[in-house]
């Protein structure tokens, strides 16, 4: 990997592979830094996001604080990317679930499998009367 995460001039800079990290997850992550930091996202190259945060306050962060912050940002990016995967993968089933929740059972699925016994029983024969 040509880009190395770094701390430079009171700014924390993290790089993220665009094939692994979604743009949405990066913005959702940076949202939580917005009260205390200037945040920025750009492309380092066509396959790499450059994500940076810089304290709004003019007080310089200590070395330790900077390192903690770097670690936190790295972890948060991973967490938010995983959350984003869940959100996107489950969007359809979630929509279906909520549509069903506010319906009256008219969209119920058919049950899995059958209920026959070795002699032969068909629950659907009951349907017609």
């Amino acid at each position, binding site marked *: 990997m040509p880009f190395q995460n770094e701390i430079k001039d009171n700014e924390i800079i993290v790089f993220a592979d665009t094939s692994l990290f979604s743009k949405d997850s990066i913005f959702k992550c940076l949202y939580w830094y917005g009260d205390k930091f200037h945040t920025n996202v750009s492309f380092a190259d066509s396959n790499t996001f450059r994500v940076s945060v810089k304290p709004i306050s003019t007080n310089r962060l200590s070395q330790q604080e900077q390192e903690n912050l770097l670690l936190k940002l790295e972890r948060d990016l991973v967490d938010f990317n995983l959350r984003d995967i869940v959100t996107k993968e489950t969007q359809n089933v979630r929509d279906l679930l909520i549509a069903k929740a506010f319906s009256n*059972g008219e969209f*119920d699925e058919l*049950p*899995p*499998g*059958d*209920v*026959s*016994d*070795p*002699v032969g*029983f068909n*629950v*659907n*024969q*009951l*349907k017609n*009367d």
Partner: protein
Amino acid sequence: MLLRTKGKPINIETHLVGKVTRNPDQLDENSFLLIDSSISELPSKNYMGVLSRQDEYEVKNGEYVVFKIPTLDHLTDGDIVSVGNDGNINTLYRVNSFHNTLLATERCNSNCLMCSQPPRDKNDIPIHYQIHKKLIPLIPKDCFELGISGGEPTLMGDLFFDLLSQIKTELPATEIHVLTNGRSFAWNQMAEKLGELDYRRLMLGIPLYADYYQVHDYIVQAENAFYQTILGLHNLARYNQRLEVRIVLHKQSIPRLTRLAKYIYKNLPFVEHVTFMGLEYIGYTPHNIQKLWIDPYDYHDELGEAVEFLAGQGMHVSIYNTPLCVLPERLWKFARKSISDWKNDYLPECSRCSKLNDCGGLFTWNLKKHSEHIRPFTA
């Protein structure tokens, strides 16, 4: 407890169902006269027939007869029996018992590892139905509770609803308790039909053995049974049916038992009763005992946590088929004397126990396989 006997039939062509009495004055067209020894003269009124222990019997008016019956001691005036053309006399209803059950069918679509009454793969539904149709009007109107079991009663299909409907009409004051695996009710039309009966005295007892499908399906030996049962319970709740969840305690159900309790509270909070039941040593159980046996004493923790959790959340919980001495005392208040009179027994040492009167004891057949921790209380 003797529930069937046999003698030599005369004139009987089809199944007859009638009450029995030893008192000729009580006879009517729906009753049999019991003859333990010889009597001087048969009553002249219209009645169904004669059940006799006599070795010889002379038919006078073409009446239905079974004679040469080894014993009639198990029959009380008012009991209801079926009499077959083969001379078989089955007790269908015992007037002095609180545990009368109609066997709907011996067919079943599950094949539980611990089934106490293994299914048979023959179509016995029409014959049972015909007998019950005759039996139900004869049952005393003050009958407190009547069970319906199987096999799987819903395999009766339409006849299941006909049977319930007849009971509702004939026995409006009787509580009805149906044992079903609930799978058929996964199909909404089944639950809907039951809902249409609007039967408030009906309670369905439905088994559930795990919160995870594979464990439940393995225990009942049927694919998709778990999903069907849960969907069935939900469909039944949609039509406001009264529901009981029944959990048999054994080596396969214990590991996820506390999870099952949480699952029931979260997903089935509408059930009226949750019962935890000790294993019966009969039917398939002896064959599968290696897979099933765990000493009740050794699942105290799991049972206690499950029971106390559900009770703590306001659900009605019972423990069945478990003697008090193998339960921690804090669970005694949940223990019920659940075993039907005719299959209930105690160990010899129990006669010395000071809690005997409060204890449900054992199934007769569990005398052969019981907890190692049964000890009489000596107060």
